[in-house]
Every structure is written in structure tokens, then in C-alpha cells.
């Protein structure tokens, strides 16, 4: 095993373990912090792939904004910050079965997919990936429309949250 593979296994174990803790821990806040651990693990995987921009976006947006919003929401709504009964209900067997089936399905599909074994082309050392990303985002025959639509989507999110908050206030 190479150094990179060992690192990948460590991060994969962290991601899976903390994701498991998110759904099984009883304290809501702990679930949020385990989720943050998962997000950091994913960011580390991006960094291992030398995708620094994605790794930083993962931390800035998911850890810095969304996770904080989760924690705000938990603290604003729950007086008792823990689940009183067990996080499992009687359907856990079926859920586990479905989980294993989808895992097996994915495994077979990915095993037969040739794209999995493809090696990424070497990047030339002088290449600035961020600059290329910007050019791709802003060229009309590349991703200009999604770029502008993203801003409209964000506007819609903002207006939606303002509308909902206004309704809550008037009630």
C-alpha cells in the first residue's frame, strides 16, 4: 500500500465513522459536530486530490455557514437538546437491508464501469486551475448561464427565507 492509500483509508474511516455517529448519537448538538467532522473529512479527500479550491469551498460554505446555521436552528428550537428515546425505530431491519442492497448494487455497477480505472491526465505544472475555472464559468459557450442562474437561485433562497420569516413574525 502506498502512502496515499493509507491516507485515503484513514479519511474514509473518519468520514464513515462520523457519519454513523451523526445518525446514532442522542444529543442534537453532538450530531451537528459529528456532521462537521464528516465535512472536514470530505474536504481532506478533495485536498488529497489536489482540488484545493473545492476543499476550501467545502470548509467555507459547509462548515463555516451551513453547519453554523444548523447549530443556530437546533439552539433556537429545541429546549431539551437530546432525544429521549432510542434513535432506532422498529423498521431498522428493513432500512439495513435496503442499505446493504444499494451498497451491493453500487459495488456491482462500479466494478463493471471502465471509467473507474481511468487515470487522470497529468496537469502541467504551470497551470492555474482557478483561473481556468473562472474562464470556464464566464465563457458564453461554457458555463455562463449556470453561473448567472446560480445568482438567481441564491436570490430566490434569500427572498424565500425573508418571506417565511415575515410570516412567522406576523403570526
Amino acid at each position, binding site marked *: 500500500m502506498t502512502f496515499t492509500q493509507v491516507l485515503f483509508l484513514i479519511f474514509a474511516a473518519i468520514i464513515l465513522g462520523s457519519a454513523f455517529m451523526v445518525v446514532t448519537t442522542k444529543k442534537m448538538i453532538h450530531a451537528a459536530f459529528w456532521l462537521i467532522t464528516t465535512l472536514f473529512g470530505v474536504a481532506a479527500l478533495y485536498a488529497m486530490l489536489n482540488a484545493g479550491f473545492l476543499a476550501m469551498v467545502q470548509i467555507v460554505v459547509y462548515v463555516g455557514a451551513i453547519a453554523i446555521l444548523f447549530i443556530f436552528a437546533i439552539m433556537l428550537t429545541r429546549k431539551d437538546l437530546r432525544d429521549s428515546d432510542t434513535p432506532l425505530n422498529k423498521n431498522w431491519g428493513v432500512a439495513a437491508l435496503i442499505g446493504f442492497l444499494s451498497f451491493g448494487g453500487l459495488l456491482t455497477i462500479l466494478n463493471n464501469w471502465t471509467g473507474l480505472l481511468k487515470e487522470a491526465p497529468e496537469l502541467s505544472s504551470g497551470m492555474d486551475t482557478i*483561473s481556468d475555472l473562472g474562464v470556464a464559468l464566464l465563457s458564453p459557450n461554457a458555463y455562463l448561464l449556470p453561473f448567472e442562474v446560480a445568482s438567481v437561485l*441564491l436570490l430566490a433562497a434569500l427572498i424565500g427565507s425573508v418571506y417565511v420569516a415575515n410570516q412567522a413574525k406576523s403570526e
Partner: protein
Amino acid sequence: MQNPWIYVGIFVLVGLLIPIAAIAIAAILGPKKPNAIKQSTYECGIETVGDSWVQFKAQYYIFGLVFLVFDVETVFLFPWAVSLNSLPLFAVFEGIIFVLILLAGLVYAWKKGMLEWV
């Protein structure tokens, strides 16, 4: 050793190690004589009433939402800012439109009174 993030990874490890070492040394050197008064919640000498959970303003959440929208926006703007000089002039206007759409959202929230701390 092409990946600069290995350096950052080691930096994170050492950055965790140094404060952990500081706390560990303090734990070894310091006395340990806990008692009920010492460990009670500090509220300027007054007995604590109720649990530590207090009702927060929903306003915090609104500001969090507005922040989230602008945070995602700035992430989109960084590639734009980096590649600006190698792009034609209309790329600047694309970015400006992007910002203006979101500033319109900020003005909307402002006019609806969402930015007031009530």
C-alpha cells in the same frame, strides 16, 4: 511531493499537537481538588436559576441565512476575480450582474425589515 496540501496537513497536526501539549502539561502540574462550589456554574456569585438553556432571538437565524447566501456568492466570485484580466470586458459585466442580483435581494430583505434587530 507535488501536493502542497501535505504541508497543510502536517501543519494542522502540529497546530493541534502544541495546544494539546500545553493543556496536558497544565493537567500534570496543576492541583486537582474539585468540590461542588468550585464546579458550580459561574453567575457572579448568584445561584443559578433553571438550566443554562435560554431562549434566543430568531433574528440570529435570519442573519445566518442572509450570511449563507452571500457566503456562497463570494465563493462564486473568487474564480471570476482571478481570471478577470484574461477575459474580455463583458466578463466584468457578467460579474457585476451577478452581484447586482444579490444586492437586490439584500435591499429586499432590508425593506421588509429583516435586517432590524428587534
